[in-house]
């Protein structure tokens, strides 16, 4: 089979209209129809058109049979003032077909160049001429697609579409899975953060504020803050390597270890050493966390801190000076077992402010890819005088957002600020601290002392008396059931702390008895016979009803119960 030349074989001065392929019997029929239409449009002679179509049909069959890329090229050319339609049969023709064409047209141009023969058939046009609209129509006729071509095209398109839909589905579900895992990780991360501020409204010694803006994908920042006892405030900021659920779980473990250890360990160095040992063991995924942790003594302002590979925080002194707590005490947590972390201390004066952050702040990028940077942060803080912790957080976050503009957030952004106000007891006699031994008869003295203090501070009797009842109930519980496992005559101290923040009476009762939440379930049978045990829960029922809020926490070796009662005496509960 001959290979027809693929380049256009129309004479140079011809305006090409396109090409009609002759590749199978169907396309010959199609070519016949098209040439008929073309001739009708150009010559306006239906008899001529029909005859021409018959010739195309006969010759086309031969061409299609003998040649691989047989086709009819269609063009327009000018002779004198009249345009003429030009049909070029491209491909080798047998003698019979050539004779047929010759009989019909009387004259044939033959060219045996390239790889085969081609034949040109010229058809005279009538005088109507060819305007642009006609030209468009002619071209349309030549290029018209056959039904089969259309079907095939549609099928091809369809399968392409299906394929891309499949691909899309696959990538989507993979992406969704990844996204949902990241989302779960982020949910765990965010659910672990203390988010309500003010976080410790009853602590007049300091105020604290923190914020965490999670990045879309990367990021494992966290922070935590809690009271270890009435005088010690523990807070930390960290950044877990990795992302998603594994990072979130590592974060949860770290946070839990910190809090449980800090309950009876006031040394940040010791806490970090412990947390590191626990997390480094069997840490197959080699995750780690940078951590800066400090414990602030609210009475003295002494701040003890330990830094495990985290950005050193800034300490903004009340006078305007700024320093950096840039001591480092060991590598990141979880990387290697058996590391003994160190610690340093600084003394905070009233109105000093601490500023903690993660690298998401300094590595925030603007649209051009430049970093927010350490210098910019330091300058911003150095020029500022923040009246409250929240102002420091808000001002710098705003500045980072301004800098970032429309650029996307690359990493979690976390900021925590702590402002020390100094010990509250110096500001006035608004506190009462009482200590009693585990002796039932001492309860009355506690109530008497409380009443004396309450009257001095104008606490109304409808707050005093319910508090008397609650103290009677809770202290009775502690003394009667809290220590029975130990020697009967062993002495224990129960500490009571009465405060008046924000027109509220807050009482904290601390004892070192067995772990027992009076507001949880009934006490397990401790050491009394059934007859001697109290009528179930009546006392605690009274406490819960009289107080606006009750809270129990186990801190190390201590039970800590906190009671809140609003000074207007109205029961919210």
């Amino acid at each position, binding site marked *: 089979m001959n290979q027809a030349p693929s380049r256009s074989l129309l004479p140079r001065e011809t305006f090409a209209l396109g090409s009609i392929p002759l590749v199978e019997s169907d396309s010959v029929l199609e070519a016949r129809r098209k040439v008929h239409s073309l001739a009708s449009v150009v010559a306006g002679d239906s008899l001529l058109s029909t005859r021409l179509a018959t010739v195309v049909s006969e010759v086309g069959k031969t061409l299609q049979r003998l040649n691989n890329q047989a086709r009819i090229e269609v063009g327009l050319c000018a002779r004198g003032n009249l345009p003429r339609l030009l049909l070029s049969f491209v491909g080798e023709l047998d003698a019979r077909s050539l004779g047929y064409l010759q009989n019909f047209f009387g004259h044939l141009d033959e060219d045996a160049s390239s790889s085969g023969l081609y034949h040109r058939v010229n058809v005279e046009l009538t005088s109507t001429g060819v305007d642009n609209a006609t030209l468009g129509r002619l071209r349309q006729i030549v290029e018209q697609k056959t039904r089969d071509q259309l079907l095939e095209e549609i099928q091809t398109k369809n399968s392409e579409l299906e394929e891309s839909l499949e691909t899309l589905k696959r990538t989507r579900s993979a992406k969704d899975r990844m996204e949902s895992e990241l989302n779960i990780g982020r949910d765990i991360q965010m659910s672990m953060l203390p988010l309500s501020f003010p976080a410790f409204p009853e602590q007049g010694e300091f105020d604290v504020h923190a914020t965490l803006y999670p990045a879309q994908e990367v990021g494992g920042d966290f922070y935590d803050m809690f009271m270890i006892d009435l005088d010690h405030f523990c807070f930390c900021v960290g950044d877990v390597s990795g992302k998603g659920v594994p990072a979130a779980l590592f974060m949860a473990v770290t946070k839990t270890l910190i809090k449980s250890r800090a309950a009876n360990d006031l040394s940040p160095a010791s806490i970090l050493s412990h947390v590191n040992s626990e997390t480094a063991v069997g840490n197959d995924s080699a995750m780690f966390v940078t951590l800066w942790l400090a414990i602030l003594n609210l009475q003295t302002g002494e701040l003890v801190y330990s830094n495990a590979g985290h950005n050193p925080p800034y300490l903004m002194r009340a006078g305007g000076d700024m320093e950096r707590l840039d001591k480092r005490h060991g590598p990141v947590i979880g990387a290697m077992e058996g590391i003994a972390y160190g610690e340093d201390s600084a003394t905070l004066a009233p109105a000093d402010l601490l500023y903690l952050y993660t690298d998401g702040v300094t590595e925030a990028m603007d649209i051009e890819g430049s970093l927010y940077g350490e210098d910019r942060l330091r300058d911003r803080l150095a020029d500022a005088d923040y009246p409250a912790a929240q102002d420091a957080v808000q001002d710098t976050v705003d500045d980072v957002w301004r800098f970032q503009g429309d650029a996307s957030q690359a990493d979690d952004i976390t900021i925590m600020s702590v402002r020390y106000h100094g010990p509250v007891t110096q500001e006035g006699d608004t506190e009462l601290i009482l200590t009693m031994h585990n002796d039932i008869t001492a*309860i*009355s003295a506690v109530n008497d002392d409380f009443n004396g203090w309450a009257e001095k501070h104008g606490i109304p009797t409808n707050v005093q*008396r319910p508090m*008397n*009842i609650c103290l*009677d109930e809770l202290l009775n519980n502690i003394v009667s059931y809290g220590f029975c496992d130990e020697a009967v005559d062993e002495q224990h101290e129960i500490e009571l702390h009465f405060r008046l923040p924000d027109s509220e009476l807050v009482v904290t009762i601390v004892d070192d008895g067995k772990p027992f939440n009076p507001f949880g379930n009934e006490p397990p049978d401790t050491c009394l016979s059934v007859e001697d045990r109290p009528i179930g829960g*009546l*006392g605690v*029922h*009274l406490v819960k009803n009289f107080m606006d809020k009750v809270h129990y926490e186990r801190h190390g070796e201590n039970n800590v119960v906190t009671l809140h009662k609003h000074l207007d005496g109205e029961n919210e509960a």
Partner: protein
Amino acid sequence: MDISTEQIDNTTVVRMSGNLDTNTSGPAHQKIDALIEEGNTHLLVNLRQVPFVSSAGLRILLATAKRLNGTEGSLKITDLNETVNEVFEISGFNTILNVFSTEEDALKDG
């Protein structure tokens, strides 16, 4: 806790003074039990001078009521202050004990 008594007709009026709590409920209970042993089965406990009653106090009042009910006797409680009244409401004791606002009201009743 001071307790004084006065006999009005067949009713023994018991006037308490002081808190009825963990420490005072025991002695108060003994005093009331002694009165019952002496044959005083119709008691009226006046709480006018009692600033507060804790669950320990509620327990002895309940025990007394149960004991008197078993002997055809009666227990009436009067003169609850705001806090004590609230204790009675929270605990539901206002529905199981005979509570009156004043001694006079209680004496007029039955």
